[in-house]
């Protein structure tokens, strides 16, 4: 069996050429071969969502994709969320202002989940937001301030979309 192969990933607009075994998950390739450790691994069976990244604009579990499968796709991770000048994305800002994180381990996954969904549809109702956020697990916050942060950011992103 071929132990590893060389492939190129487009991550946050930058090409990363890696040599990795086909069995290596996208999450592990991002973390270990691309040095992007902001994507966290919490369960490796697709339930917790800590590893959520955007693949071609859609939030997906990077523990349930092999790195080699992401060749040719546009990948976005938490490291690519802030603007080039370092200013926070509205979601990051809202999480900070409204205490949407405690230990911060699940946070990158929640941010990428919400970014992908809000970019598809910023007009989510409160119920839609809660339903969306039920995709990922957080153990610290009781979700109160995650819901609040996403609501605030959604309103802001709606404003930006219209202006």
């Amino acid at each position, binding site marked *: 069996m071929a132990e590893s192969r060389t492939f190129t990933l487009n991550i946050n607009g930058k090409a990363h050429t890696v040599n990795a075994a086909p069995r290596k998950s996208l999450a592990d390739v991002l973390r270990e071969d691309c040095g992007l450790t902001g*994507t966290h691994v*919490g369960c490796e069976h697709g339930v917790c969502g800590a590893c959520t990244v955007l693949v071609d604009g859609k939030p997906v579990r990077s523990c349930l994709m092999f790195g080699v499968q992401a060749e040719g796709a546009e990948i976005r991770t938490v490291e690519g969320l802030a603007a080039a000048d370092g200013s926070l994305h509205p979601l990051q800002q809202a999480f900070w202002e409204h*205490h949407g994180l405690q230990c911060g381990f699940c946070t990158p996954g929640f941010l990428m989940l919400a970014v992908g969904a809000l970019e598809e549809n910023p007009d989510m109702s409160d119920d839609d937001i809660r339903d969306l956020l039920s995709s990922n697990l957080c153990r610290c916050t009781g979700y109160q301030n995650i819901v609040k942060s996403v609501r605030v950011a959604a309103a802001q992103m709606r404003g930006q979309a219209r202006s």
Partner: protein
Amino acid sequence: MTWIGRRLRRFEDPALLLGRGSFVADRSSTAAAVKFVRSPVAAGTILGIDIPDGASVFTARDLAGTKPIRPILERPDYRAVGQPLLAVDRVVHTGQAVAVVVGRDQADAEDLAEQVYVDIDPSAAVVDVDAALAEGARQVHAEAPGNVLVEGRMKTPGLDQAFAEAAAVVAITLRSGRQSAAPMEPRGGLAEFDPASGRVTLTASVQMPHMLRTGIADVLGMRETDLRVVAPDVGGGFGQKMSLFPEYAVLVWLARHLRRDVAWIEDRRENFLAASHSRDQVFGVKGAFAADGRLLGIDADLRSNVGAFSCYPVTCGVEPLMAFAELPGPYDFAEYGVRSRGVTTNTCMMAPYRGVSRPMLTLTMERLMDVAARRLGIDPWDIRRRNLIKHFPHKSPTGLVYDPATYLEAMEAAEQRIGLGEFRARQKRLRDEGRYIGLGVSVFSERSGYGTPAFAARKMQIVPGYENVDCTMDPSGYVDVRIGASPHGQGLKTALAQLVADELGISPEHVRVISGDTDATPYGWGTFASRSMVIAGGATKLAATKLADKIRLVAATLLEVEPEAIELADGLARVRQTNRSLAIADAARAAYHQSYKFPAVGAGLRDTALYDPGGTFSNACHVAEVEVDIGTGGVSISRFLVVEDAGVLINPMIVDGQIAGGVAQGIANALYEEVVYDDAGNLLTASFADYLPPTAAEIPEIDIVHMETISPATVTGAKGVGEGGAIGAPAAVLNAISDALSPFGIEALEMPATPDRIRDLLRKAGISPHG
């Protein structure tokens, strides 16, 4: 303007939001990967271990000379049992580490681990707490006849008479399923060997770095100075990361033995199998009530399944002895009899988890109140009104002294806010439509911030409790605060900076809190038991006060006034009622570089303080409104109210976050989460598909209201608040379910109250899915 009391956004957050957090796995990709080979059975004798040729595999034989982890309670009823670093001759729970494999990377290590064959002659497992106590039950440990590892007993002289005189005796038995703290980041450690010094740095996802260093040095027989323990960003702990686990000692041993860096990053399945569990308690209680609802006495038989080992350092006494001492809760009654046992079984070790016994003892007292109220025809709020502690300081039947709190006031505030009259009308209307809603109340105390006296009373050989804090202002006027507490998500660094800023008159942004590094912080006890704000916060305030005195002395000398004339504010040392001032940074510079001018201060600006308080009780009232679906047995929570009294709030935003997170875990205990073993001791819930932490869809909006009784028992006036949410919520939810189902005479007494269990109660009451 003070910083205390402000909803200051956290200094911890930007790095975490940008993906620049630094968790142990983030630092481990270049180290060799470690995988533990774990017992596939709950009990048995190891006949042999086959190791693949050439593989880097180690077993207990290789670890000869190391000592088992064996914490001690100095009580005659305690049976010490040792936990070997790797299983020696026998296994006592599924998932116990038997061998350790070192591979190039994680996948490689797993490939190798699969090839290690452990030949075990299995024996029957003892899994259930009552089965373990049964006559003739197989003994889990030779040291513990009857499988009891610890037993607390007491009886007040008037107990029998209280029961003899009671108008009603209410007896109930409550059960809590076993929970896992399930932090989003499982355990993990990186042990780095420094060939130059021979030292090992263990970076690990832990809550108690100093204790870990002592514990590992003890079991490996090495000098503490040869080991540095670092807690980097930690992805939640909730108690699960405070104990010394064999895996960490093995990692340090491997790094020294192999003279290389090794990392163990626990996966989720392993976390369920082998990190600690909690709860799994059966509490039988009888309450003696007077006709007017006054509680005269309690007689309790409390059984806690403590698993296969005793956790280090707090021991397996933590749950049974907490239950023993604190069952009376917020109620004022005199007569108390209790027998509380910690029972060993062939299951994963139990260790502290947010709440420690109090979710269960609160459930017990609060369900008892409701059942008694129904029996006596008294309103559930009234029966509590009659029994809550109203006079302070209050001494409980077990000798605990309660500082001032607002048990009654918080409950009455909750009663007002929830709109009881409107609820009862709606409940009646909906019942007529075949819908069942219920309201449940739970009143409780949260003993928090206790120092060495409380732990010493438990007869622990290792007595935690105090904190030392080192507060240093550098020549540029910035402050480093070094603490022995070890926050992991609580936002303590922000809250302590707020405290220091007020003492020193500087911005909290000029305060850096350093924690989680045994090379850089004073020996301390880490973060657990709702202690950090009270104890580390208290020590920080005391140290900062002493530092402020020094700054005033320096400034007074430079400004040629008396120190009493100096006030520190806005970064300035000001002469009161004048416009004369000096930048605090200039005073700092002078303290270091012109120290000869300030003989009373000495050189530089540094001070330390020790704080070891007796403890304080915060309190709260939780109210849950639920709807029970008769057709599915499903319970949904539509409203949740918390009226909390945690004393002075340093950062109310952080306090609210602690409460909400705790409530979510309490709801999980009440409705969703349960670690399940089969009769043979196989774990049936080793994934998040089977062990069910609730999501955003299951947790309702939580309405939080604060009362602020300033604690005279703490230097900041603050009380601990880390666990209360988890303590009070289960009782509120089960009381609400029982209220909803009261037309059928159903009392919910078991957690989690799963749809299956609710339907079972309904079926037994003759209620079909169609109502």
